[in-house]
């Protein structure tokens, strides 16, 4: 981060805000990186000679005579297999005290995959969690966030899913995560012996918030390298995307842009889509699957961040605590995996789609019965049955702690239905009932 020979140094700063500086400079590129008294900054506006830079760590203490040196290029990353097992900060600087990684230097923005060269994602990604595998089946090449209130153990579950899912490579992007959670990830990765297949780019809550804007591009570049060039099955973990979006809002605010909904920049949709759309199934077999975390404010999914995310991602996994049993579950109502249709009943057993839907519909009946009960009405016999079913369904299938295979989930589903209901109450195709209904079998 020092000036090369004959590189001009500017030291007349015309304007300063909390996050940006403006000065006159020649031949500057849009998006170019620069250093302001050693702090990393990036060009965000060029107006004739006048250049505005965003200073990632903030401008606190910077003088109007601060020294500005331009790097001549946009942010880039050195790509090599040696990234594996390493921890970096938002500038790609090692956090683990080891040497810098040498390798091919590449612009982190990267090019867009030609949609006609994408493959249809259709390889099942099993996690052993029924709330995912049974109800919201994931496939490689998919992008999906956990929607979670801040009190949910989302990072622990994210780590668990990452360890259970079958992948060649995991790339973790931590944005504003607590130092404790960072250590939890590290500990979890090492204890499962997977430490060597993981690349991590970490910005914790102790680091300056704007620095986290660089994390997703680094993560996606590394993931694309392993997926496209090494044909690996890459799993990307991004947490917490809400804190990333908050950082976007800070920059747009300092740039005097008119905010749209919830004080977010009008480009929020495009900004998020650029990251999530890196999820891909390449024709050469490599893939990038993105599992992210979007924390919510008191369950509000109409807020601009979860709302825009929902429009971009292929579904969402809604973490919640079941009030009846106290167990953490993936909400069967509001969760969705849009790509499950590519595998359920095709790569999994034929009864999967109908069993999944019937169970959720019966669970919905239970939730209606519950609200009836709460309003002080008498429950009829069907209501009683559905309530008992709901509790069993939660304990025997939905609990995220369980780790079972998809066939076993389906068998449990049939047993649950036959324990509490008549076959005609399910609306399932007759030929499947004939084949799988536990009574008919025996």
């Amino acid at each position, binding site marked *: 981060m020092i000036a090369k020979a004959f590189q001009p140094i500017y030291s007349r700063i015309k304007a300063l805000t909390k996050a940006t500086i403006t000065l006159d400079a020649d031949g500057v*590129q*849009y*998006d170019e990186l620069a250093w302001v008294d050693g702090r990393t900054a990036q060009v965000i*506006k*060029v*107006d004739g000679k006048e250049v505005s830079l965003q200073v990632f760590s903030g401008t606190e203490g910077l003088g109007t005579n601060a020294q500005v040196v331009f790097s001549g290029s*946009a942010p880039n990353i050195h790509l090599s297999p040696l990234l594996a097992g390493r921890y970096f900060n938002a500038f790609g600087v090692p956090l683990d005290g080891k040497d810098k990684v040498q390798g091919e230097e590449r*612009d982190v*923005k*990267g*090019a*867009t*995959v*030609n*949609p*006609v*060269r*994408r493959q*249809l*994602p259709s390889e099942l990604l099993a996690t052993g969690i029924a709330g995912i595998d049974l109800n919201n089946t994931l496939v490689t090449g*998919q992008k999906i966030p956990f929607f979670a209130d801040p009190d949910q153990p989302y990072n622990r579950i994210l780590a668990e899913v990452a360890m259970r899912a079958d992948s060649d490579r995991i790339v973790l992007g931590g944005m504003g995560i607590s130092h404790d959670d960072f250590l939890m990830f590290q500990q979890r990765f090492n204890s499962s012996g997977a430490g060597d297949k993981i690349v991590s780019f970490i910005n914790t809550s102790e680091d300056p918030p704007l620095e986290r804007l660089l994390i997703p591009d680094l993560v996606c570049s590394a993931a694309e390298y392993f997926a*496209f060039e090494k044909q690996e099955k890459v799993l990307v973990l991004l947490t917490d995307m809400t804190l990333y979006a908050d950082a976007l809002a800070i920059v747009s605010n300092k740039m005097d842009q*008119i905010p*749209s*909904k919830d004080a977010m920049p*009008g480009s929020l*949709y*495009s900004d998020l*889509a650029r990251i999530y*759309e*890196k*999820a*891909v199934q390449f*024709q050469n077999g490599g893939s990038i699957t993105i599992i992210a975390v979007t924390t919510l404010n008191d369950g509000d999914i*109409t*807020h*601009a961040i979860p*709302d*825009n995310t*929902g*429009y*971009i991602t*292929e*579904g*969402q996994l809604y973490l919640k605590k079941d009030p009846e049993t106290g167990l953490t579950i993936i909400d069967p109502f*509001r969760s*969705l995996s849009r*790509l499950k*249709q590519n595998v359920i009943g095709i790569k999994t057993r034929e009864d999967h789609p109908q069993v999944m839907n019937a169970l*959720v*519909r019966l669970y*919905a009946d239970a939730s209606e019965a519950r609200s009836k009960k709460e309003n002080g*009405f*008498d429950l*009829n*016999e069907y209501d009683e049955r559905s309530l008992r079913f709901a509790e069993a369904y939660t304990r025997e299938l939905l609990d995220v702690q369980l780790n079972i295979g998809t066939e076993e989930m389906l068998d449990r589903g049939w047993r649950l239905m036959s324990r509490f209901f008549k076959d*005609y*109450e399910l*609306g399932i195709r*007759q030929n499947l009932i004939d084949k799988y209904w536990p009574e008919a079998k025996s």
Partner: protein
Amino acid sequence: MTKGKITAILSNLLQVEVDGPIRQNEICYVLKAGEELMAEVIKINGNIAFAQLFEAGSGLKAGDQVHFSGELLEVSLGPGLLSKNFDGLQNDLEAMPGSFIQAGQRTPALDLDEEYEFTPLVKPGAILEAGDAFGEVPENALKHTIMLPFKFEGKWEITEIAPAGKYPLKHIVAKVKNENGESQDLSMVQKWPVKWPIKNYLRKERPAEIFRTGLRVIDSLNPIAEGGTAYIPGAFGTGKTVLQQAIAKNNRAEVVILVACGERANEVVEIFHSFPELEDLATGRKLKDKTTIVCNTSNMPVAAREASVYVGMTMAEYYRSMGHKVLLLADSTSRWAQALREMSNRMEELPGTDAFPVELPAVIANFYGRAGKVEMRNGTKGSVTFLGTVSPAGGNFKEPVTESTSKVARCFYALSQKRADAKRYPAIDPLQSYSRYLDYEEFQAFAAEHIESAWIEKVNRAKNLLSKGIEARDQISILGDDSVPLDYHRDFWKSELIDFAFIQQDSFDDTDMNSSLERQSFMLNRVLEICDKPQEFEDFSAVSAFYKKVINLFKQMNYSDFESDDFQKFNSELEALFNLQSIEA
């Protein structure tokens, strides 16, 4: 040719100092490391042009060279558009090398060396006006007429025309001259600026015929007419895209243009994957044969989103001019509006509601206005039926894009979060949705003749039963199961029957996904018949038990081929169950 130099860069908005005359909306090219990046002039102030770059501005410098083309954003129109996959600027995606799209990469929309079997339709001496056919080539299953280019003004006489035979697209197939003695060579390809409607028709008609989608909740309850417009707003996860894809598969249009505007790439990939396999119900050929995809997914250049919907509409109008029935689907128009907002914001224009540009309602109205059924000068009729999805922020329909669209689209398909949560798909709310065409006398006459005489009354009766059921449900949930008359339970379950047996439809089931009008009318009659039959029950749990059995039988019927043995079996079981109950009564 006018040239210029970049003076300012803010994301993809450039300011360019120019040395000569330029036009509003003119296309210009920025030179960057041997590549030409395309941009469109969107504002001019003195000798400064404001241009939106159809790429990211990364790496550009003040002083970089720009040259102006003198042309607006145009598309190529000619044989070979069908089965192609274009980006938002009509670049042929298949023709691009490699797995990634490099900045500034351009490929021609049509392969000018590709040969087509040309048949002349006129002789030398024939007098033509813009849009009049002079030749014809087969394109997949379609008759593709070659017309005097839409840009031509006045009358033109054919002086030479090629005999029938195989020619490459670039071949001069005809020569024409006008009264002033100017002459022109014509190939099979012409160009047209996307923002201008193609208006070479005689007149636009009021839509009268039903446009079949195969979805019961649309065709029967809130039908869209051929040449009509509809919009589908819905929060994420309510099934907008699945619904639009179901329509793309089941329709009977001759040409389908799908515009994926700022949405997920994997959804388009699914279409790439399935359309070459799926059968077109209208012709028995593959769906891909009649489909053109314009694909500007959310990670492709934001500025090209606006272009993508206009590119799609212009190609749709082109096929309409030949007398074809065209369906245009755009998913989602909100992403286009957001792209307009991003640019308006960078231009520091005073914002309208939610920071959208103030002209948004007018832009949307003009776009929807381009759909319609038209009669050409030679008496043939063609149509563009347009369905757009809207992605309202937070699922709230009181937002500028939804509101502006509601003023111009004639059908409204409201996707309800509640229905989606309960997995009642398609999640179209049958009562909140509407079709203005049901009120059209032309449409009513069509339904009476082609479906059945009292069809509209039956549809309204089903809707009344639905709304009665909702009232009953509300009463039951306020007063409790025991405290309401049995009638309430009966009314509620009748509406559930209509919902489960008729409105809900499984788009992932090969049989249920597409219901013919004949089948729809059979099923609706059956359902209404049951609702009309007086029935007595002991108590409310007997009501639900009975209707659950009925619903189950209807579902089994929906999963069986129409009038197949299975279908008849469930139908007679239904009759048996039904008579049994009425005998006891």
